[in-house]
């Protein structure tokens, strides 16, 4: 007996949520604001307006692996990432910040923001250690929720982006077509 794979069952079990079904921009902004107040300082505000990132950018991110799998990515100009790190380290900031200082502080912000976002998503899921560098690519524009903010006049984006490519769009099987 042969059975025809209609794709029906496969699509059913492969069904996975995209991030826009799970979280919205307002929630991401609220999470980021709370992290900023706690880590950066009580008077630090994030203004939700889009503005263009400079050419020299740096990202920090954590990966979330679970029912939804992807990354929580913070991206800003390199100079802003340094200023942010300095704000975190306050009096213990060295006169000259090296890459490790920036990776540590900017990474920890991603860790805290990412942890809170993970908690707002269906679980259980794991959280990676933070990474700093060039952001992971956006694999699926439909699995992306992005918030643009301005901090101390400088642009910064928070992108919650899926790690998986879009599922193939089911096409009707030729075999089942009746020639006209």
């Amino acid at each position: 007996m042969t059975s025809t794979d209609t794709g029906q069952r496969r699509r059913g079990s492969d069904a996975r949520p995209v991030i826009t079904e799970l979280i919205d921009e307002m929630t991401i902004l609220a999470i980021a604001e709370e992290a900023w107040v706690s880590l950066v300082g009580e008077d630090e505000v994030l203004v939700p307006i889009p503005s263009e990132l400079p050419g020299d950018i740096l990202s920090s991110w954590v990966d979330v692996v679970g029912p939804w799998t992807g990354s929580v990515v913070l991206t800003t100009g390199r100079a802003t990432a340094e200023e942010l790190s300095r704000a975190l380290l306050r009096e213990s900031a060295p006169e000259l910040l090296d890459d490790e200082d920036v990776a540590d502080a900017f990474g920890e912000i991603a860790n805290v923001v990412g942890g809170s976002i993970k908690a707002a998503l269906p679980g259980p899921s794991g959280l990676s250690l933070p990474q700093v560098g060039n952001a992971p690519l956006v694999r699926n524009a439909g699995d992306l929720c992005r918030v643009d903010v301005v901090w101390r006049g400088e642009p910064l984006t928070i992108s919650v982006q899926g790690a998986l490519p879009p599922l193939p769009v089911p096409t009707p099987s030729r075999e089942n077509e009746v020639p006209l």
Partner: protein
Amino acid sequence: MRALVIDDSRAMRRIVTGILTNLGYEVRDAGHGGEGLDVLNEGWVPDLATIDWNMPVMDGLQFVSAVRSNPAWRRMTMMMVTSESEHTQIVRALAAGAHEYMIKPFTADAFRDKLALLGLLPQEVAL
């Protein structure tokens, strides 16, 4: 009172150390669980350990388990200070022997309140 702050982020160690120092604690810090155990093995056993969850080399959960296996360290209070806010993870930490948890991000006031609940505010601050 003494506290050991364990976190892989230097920025986070600075924040937690600042809060505890302001409350009158004598603080040492460690970059991961293994370094934390080194401090304990030196004989510097604190009243409180604040422990990050996500760390390289030895994570917070492994540190808590290691501490619980040594009776000499029994009187030390362990508080997870972590971005792991999922209920199941918190239950795992408590089951492993942690006494309390604090979710990042937190404020200095929230930290102080938690220590007050644990009876771990140095006397001059508690009065």
